[in-house]
C-alpha cells in the first residue's frame, strides 16, 4: 500500500502537470514508492501507481523496466553503483569492481548477507573527469582506489 505521506508527495508532482496528464508524474511516483519501500518496487506497487495515476499497468511496467534506477528485487541498505563505461574502464574500474566484490563477497545484482550493501554495474554517470566513479545514494564518489573504497565502506557501516 502506498502510504499517505507518499501519496501527498506524489500529489505534489501530479500538480505540476496538466490535469489530464497525470501520468506524467509516473517516474516521480515510482521513485517515491521505491524510496519508501527500501530501494525496490514490486509489481503490486506498480499496479497501485498505475491505478493512482489512472494509466494502464503495462505502461508503468514499461517505464519501471526501462530506467535502471528502478529496482525490481530487494537491494541492500546502500546500493553501490559502479560505472564500467569507457572512461572509468580506462581508469581501472575493473579494479574497483574486483575490490568491492572481494571485500563484500557478492557479485553484481547481489546483496550482502547483513543486508547492508548491494552492488550494481551502471552505465556512464557523467563524471568521467574524475573516473573511476561510483554512486551511492545521492552522492558520487570519484577517483576511487582500494583505500578510498575501504574508508567509504566503513563510514557507511558506521552510519547505520
Amino acid at each position: 500500500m502506498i502510504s499517505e505521506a507518499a501519496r501527498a508527495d506524489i500529489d505534489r508532482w501530479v500538480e505540476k502537470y496538466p490535469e489530464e496528464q497525470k501520468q506524467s508524474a509516473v517516474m516521480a511516483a515510482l521513485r517515491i514508492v521505491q524510496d519508501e519501500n527500501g530501494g525496490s518496487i514490486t509489481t503490486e506497487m506498480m499496479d497501485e501507481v498505475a491505478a493512482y495515476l489512472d494509466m494502464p499497468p503495462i505502461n508503468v511496467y514499461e517505464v519501471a523496466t526501462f530506467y535502471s534506477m528502478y529496482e525490481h528485487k530487494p537491494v541492500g541498505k546502500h546500493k553501490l553503483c559502479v560505472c564500467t563505461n569507457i572512461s572509468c574502464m580506462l581508469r581501472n574500474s575493473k579494479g574497483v569492481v574486483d575490490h568491492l566484490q572481494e571485500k563484500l563477497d557478492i557479485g553484481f545484482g547481489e546483496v550482502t548477507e547483513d543486508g547492508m550493501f548491494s552492488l550494481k554495474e551502471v552505465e556512464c554517470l557523467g563524471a568521467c573527469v574524475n573516473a573511476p566513479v561510483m554512486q551511492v545514494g545521492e552522492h558520487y564518489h570519484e577517483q576511487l582506489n582500494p583505500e578510498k573504497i575501504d574508508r567509504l565502506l566503513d563510514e557507511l557501516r558506521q552510519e547505520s
Partner: protein
Amino acid sequence: MDTQKDQVTIELNDTRLEARQGQMLIEVADANGVSIPRFCYHKKLSVSANCRMCLVEVENAPKMLPACATPVTDGMKAWTKSPKAIAAQKSVMEFLLINHPLDCPVCDQGGECDLQEMALGYGGDTSRYTEGKRIIKEKDYGSLVSTEMSRCIHCTRCVRFGVEIAGIPEIGGTGRGDHMQIGTYVQKALSSELSGNIIDLCPVGALLSKPFLFSARSWELKSVPGVAPHDAVGSNIQIQTRNGKVMRVIPQENEAVNEIWISDRDRFSYLALDSEDRVTQPMVRNSDGQLVETDWQSALEAAVNGMKMVASTDGGGALGALASPSSTTEEFYLLQKLMRGLGSNSVDHRLRQQDFSGQSDQIAPQLGTTLQQIEQQNAVLIVGSDIQREQPLLSHRIRKAALSGAAVSTVNPDGIEFNFPLSGEVVTDQLTPALSAIARAMVDMGMGGDLSGLSALVADANVEPAHQAVAESLIGGEKAMVLMGEIAYRDQNQAVIYALTGAIASMSGATFSVLTEGANALGGLLAGAVPHRDTADATVDSVGMDVASMVDMAPKGLLLMGIEAESDLAAGPAAADAIRKSEFVVSLSTFADSVTMGKSDVILPLAAFTESSGTFVNAEGEWQSFGGAVAPKGEARPGWKILRVMGTMANLDGFDYNSSEDVLSEVRGLCDQAETEKWSWSALSDLGDASSCTVASTPIYQVDSLVRRSEPLQQTPLAHAGQATTGGAE
C-alpha cells in the same frame, strides 16, 4: 481546404505521381503499386518508424529516410531501388536477423511470413554472425494466441493494436536495449474480444494461433470466402481447409464491413465443428421410444408424415417452427414456406425476445445507416446494450467515432464498461423510467414528436441532469444515432422501451438503429420467418404463434432448426418443457443437445457453418452470400436441401429448386420489390404494464452452439468475466 493546393506531384523511381499533401511516402507508393518492404508500418495503426526496413533515398536528404514517416512534399524525388536504398535495406535486414532464430521449418508462420519474404527479397544470402542468439522465454497469452518471442523483431504492431484498436493496452515493451521484450510483463491471458487479430498483424512467427499450432502449413490450405455467423456485422472471413477439414479462419479485408479485423468469436468458433456431439446420421424414434439411425428417405418420410398428421387432425395452426437466428436467409425462406404451406404462420427465430406485443409496429432490426457511417456520427446513444461484446466490430466503429470526438452516451444496467470514452451515462436497471426522462427532457426543450400512447409516461418522468445531458447531446449532434441493443430488445417490456427509444430518435432527428441476436435476424424477418409477417413484409391473414406463445402453448407439432432449447431461448427450461410436451418434434440439428435427443421423434443432421451455402443479411442490409467450404460431416445436409425435400414430399408447390442460388433469387426478388416501401414505425397505442425489468446481455461466448463448444474460447478471461445482471426478469 483548397484541393488544388492540397495536391502535390512527386517523383518516385523517376515516375511522376500525384499525391495529397501530408500523405506518407509509403502510402503513395502503396497506392501506386510500388512495393517498399516494411515490418512496423501498418495502414490501420499509427506510424512508429522503428523497424527501419522502409528506408528509401530522397533527393537532398543526407541520410536514407523511412518511407512510413516521411510526408510527401511538392517536387520530392525518391528512389526505392537505388544502390543506396538497396544497401540500406540489406543492412537493416542483416540487423533484424542477428537475433532471429533460423527455425522456419518448424515455424507456423513459414510460407506466410513477412520476414521470410523480405529476407529473400532484400537480405543477404549468408550471415556474418557467429555469436549466440537472444532467447526469450515463451509467454502465456491464454488459450488463443501462442507466443514464440525469440522470433520477435520488436515491430510493436501488437502493442499499438492494444492501445489503438482493442482499447485495452495489455502488451508493451519492457526493459531496454538488448533486454527489451514485448509482452505483458505479468503473466496474463489477453482479455480483448479482438485479441486474435495480433496473430495477423505479427509480421513474423512470434504470435501464432494456438489452436492452429503445428497442424498445417499455410501452402497446403485451400481458402474459401465466407461470412462470420455470430453477430449482425457479417464479418468477411476466409475459411481455410485441408483435406475437407476446416483448419482455421482468418479475416477477409472488406473496408465497408469488418475492415481487416474479425472478432475472436469469428476466428475460433470453427473449433466447435469437430466436437463429439455432432449429429451425423438421420434418426427416428421407434415404438420403444429409442432413437435409431436410419436412412434419409425414411427419416424425411417420418418427419413429413408426422407433421401432416398433426396438421390433418388439429389443423395447420397446431404446428410451430423455431429456427436459430443465425440460419441462412434461404433456410428461413424455405422454412416459412414449408410451414405456411402446411397451414401455419407460427414460425419464429427471435429466440431470446420475451415481449412480442409491439411486433406489428416495429421496424426490422437494422442499423438504418452503414457501418462506415457510424464513424461519422457526432452523437451516439446506446440503449440497453453491451455493444462491445454483442457486436464487437460494430462497437469498434463507435469507438472510432468516440475517439474522434463524438459524444457517446449509454442507458445501461450497472457493470457494463466499454473501451471508448463516454460523454454521458445513465446507469439503471429500469430502462423505461430512464428513457421516459430523456424523452421528457427533449419535450421540455421544445422537441415535438409523435408521443401518442407514451404521453402519460413521459409527462410523469423525473428528469435528472444525466437525462438532460443525454438529450442535449443527441439534439446537438449534427449526425446522431440511437442504438437499441440486446438488453433492451429482450426486455419483458420491449414494446414500451422500443417505442420510447424510437421516439427519442425521432424527436432528436437521430438514426434509429435496432440490433438483436444472431447473424441474420434481418434476413429472418425479410424472409418471413416470423409469425406476423410473410416474406418481404407482406401481411399475413392471421398472426401465428411467436416464440413466447409457443413456449406457453407447446404446439402439437414442432419443427426445430439449429436450436438448443435450454441455451438458445430466453425461456430456457420452460422452452425445454414445451418441447417435451409437444406431441411430434422434428429437429434439424447440428449438435446433439439433451432436449433434442431426449424428445425429438425425428432428427435430421443439419450441416454446420462452413458446410453450407447461403446468405446472411447484415445489420446495414447488405446481402452477403457464401458457398460451402467443406462437405457436411457424416450424413448431414445443408438446411435448404432438407427443407426443399420436405416441401416436395409434403406435396407443396414451388419447392423444385436446383441450388441455394435459386432459393436466394426468389426471396431476393420478393424483397427487392418490397424495398420501395419504407419500413414503418409508429408509436404504440397500448402501453400495458410499464414497470421495467432489465435482463442480462447474453455472454459473448454463450451466444450460439458453435461458440459454446469452442474450447479455447471458453478458456478465455472474457468467457468468465462477470456479466452485468440486474432486475428479476429471468
